[in-house]
């Protein structure tokens, strides 16, 4: 019996572990190591953050689901990898530290035959002074990155609404909290949900709303922008996005590296080098992501973290990491199998893999501060990569080391993004977008880098209903209810 360890229980890790357990059956062991007791459907945290959903509606306990799937579950965080084994054994192992109540701080060495790193990101609030400490949210702003953060955000939003009802104007600042953030889409969706709630509460005229983002143009989304079919036209995401903001009377500040957060104001540096401050009463700023800080050691105990991981903490995989000019970037730079080039029994999935480079055009201020979005690797790409990795690992475990590895390049996969505004079945709307492929391929699609037949955007109730359907469908799937394998990632 061989053992597969999956580090992380988010979209990528959960997908990998559950499919691997199904395909491997009881002949092999699948172990999930995740510090969380609950699974969280993160896209719906937006609705928790405006008080339209509870934490319980977007989370569920992992233990019974893994028990049903025959997966060994360790509520713990991975600390280090020893891919060559240790002094007493050649068997590779991972050192974990329990987070489970009653076992906090205890550690264990878990041997493995194959390991998948799907740890997701460290929410790096500490990268911006005042935004937080390490991975902990600070006191001045709110976040919707976790269900608990979203609950906190909803309380702060309610306080702001009450102040406006009492006649006090409020300034809302929503966007990115650093020059190297990703996930602009989440902040974008939260902005529109807050605006919708303010309208519903009858206080929109008491609110000044501003978007702050590290994107060099509106609608970059960390993908260098996109051209999509809208109403029969091929339209730039810049025009599409600016229209959404203009319609709602939300101003924007873009190309901004938020470099300081204090009570009631943020400091920023712009791409043209100017610096300034923006005041706020309510701010939701997304933190930058980093790897979770896993270390790696060789058999002699020497630190080989730099061999296994990129400097940003994400795991190196089969990408082309050779530094090259923006003009020389190609779709083929992007990984296909997510196998670590040094240790073939290690894979990374979802946010945990190190991208070869960003997708957007690299930019920096005259002071040398890099200000550009990093590539999005959440949601649909995470699930698809997780399933491809599960296929590959299962093949290796059952057919041997020469088994065919499955491929899932982000330059050959699409993504769907539904940004809602409101939650009511008939009162909300949504901007539904798809992009194909996520990473533009200018050799295959010389015009816009993408297939405009499958890169489209639309605003209306229909997208909003899709958001509702996705919420229920993916929670149903993640709970491994009957027919779960039929629901695509």
């Amino acid at each position, binding site marked *: 019996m061989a053992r597969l360890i999956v580090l992380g229980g988010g979209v990528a890790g959960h997908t990998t572990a559950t499919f691997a357990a199904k395909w491997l059956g009881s002949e092999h062991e699948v172990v999930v190591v995740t510090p969380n007791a609950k699974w969280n459907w993160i896209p719906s945290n937006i609705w928790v953050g405006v008080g339209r959903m509870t934490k319980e509606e977007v989370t569920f306990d992992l233990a019974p689901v893994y028990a049903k799937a025959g997966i060994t579950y360790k509520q713990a965080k991975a600390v280090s990898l020893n891919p060559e084994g240790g002094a007493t054994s050649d068997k590779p192992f991972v050192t974990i530290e329990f987070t489970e109540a009653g076992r906090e701080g205890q550690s264990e060495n878990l041997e493995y035959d194959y390991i998948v790193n799907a740890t997701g990101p460290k929410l790096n609030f500490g990268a911006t002074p005042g935004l937080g400490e390490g991975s902990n949210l600070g006191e001045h702003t709110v976040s919707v990155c976790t269900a608990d953060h979203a609950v906190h955000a909803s309380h702060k939003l309610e306080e702001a609404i009450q102040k406006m009802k009492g006649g006090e104007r409020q300034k809302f600042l929503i966007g990115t909290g650093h020059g190297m953030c990703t996930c602009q889409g989440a902040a974008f969706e939260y902005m529109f949900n807050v605006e919708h709630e303010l309208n519903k509460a009858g206080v929109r005229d008491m609110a000044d709303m501003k978007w702050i983002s590290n994107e060099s143009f509106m609608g970059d989304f960390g993908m260098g922008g996109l051209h999509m079919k809208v109403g029969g036209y091929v339209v730039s995401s810049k025009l599409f996005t600016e*229209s959404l903001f203009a319609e709602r009377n939300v101003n924007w500040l873009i190309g901004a590296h938020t470099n300081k957060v204090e009570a009631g104001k943020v400091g920023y540096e712009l791409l043209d080098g100017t610096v300034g401050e923006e005041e706020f009463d309510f701010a939701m700023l997304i933190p930058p992501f980093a790897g979770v800080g896993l270390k790696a050691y060789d058999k002699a105990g020497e630190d080989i973290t730099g061999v296994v991981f990129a400097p940003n903490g994400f795991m190196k995989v089969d990408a082309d990491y050779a530094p090259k000019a923006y003009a020389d970037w190609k779709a083929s730079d992007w990984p296909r199998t997510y196998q670590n080039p040094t240790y073939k029994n290690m894979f990374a999935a979802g946010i945990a893999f190190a991208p070869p480079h960003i997708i957007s055009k690299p930019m920096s201020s005259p002071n040398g501060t890099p200000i550009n979005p990093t590539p999005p690797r959440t949601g649909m790409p995470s699930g698809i990569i997780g399933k491809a990795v599960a296929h590959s690992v299962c093949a290796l475990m059952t057919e041997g080391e020469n088994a065919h590895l499955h491929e899932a390049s982000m330059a050959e996969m699409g993504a*769907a993004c539904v940004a809602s505004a409101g939650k009511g079945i008939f009162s909300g709307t949504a901007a539904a977008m*798809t992009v194909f492929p996520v990473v533009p391929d200018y050799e295959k699609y010389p015009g816009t880098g993408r297939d405009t037949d499958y890169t489209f955007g639309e605003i209306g109730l229909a997208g909003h209903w899709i958001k509702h359907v996705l919420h229920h469908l993916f929670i149903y799937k993640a709970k491994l209810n009957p027919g779960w394998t039929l629901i695509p990632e």
Partner: protein
Amino acid sequence: MKQEEVNFEQSQFTQTMIPGKFAKAMRTCVLWQLFRFAVLNIKMIIVVQKSH
């Protein structure tokens, strides 16, 4: 001034487009949106299939 023209008074919004009454009505027209729901689902399923 028409409702959709109000926000154009702000300099930041002058280079974009703002939907008028008809476009907004279509966004919330249940019959039209039921049709678009079907179309969007089919297109998204194709994108998902092409991605696997």
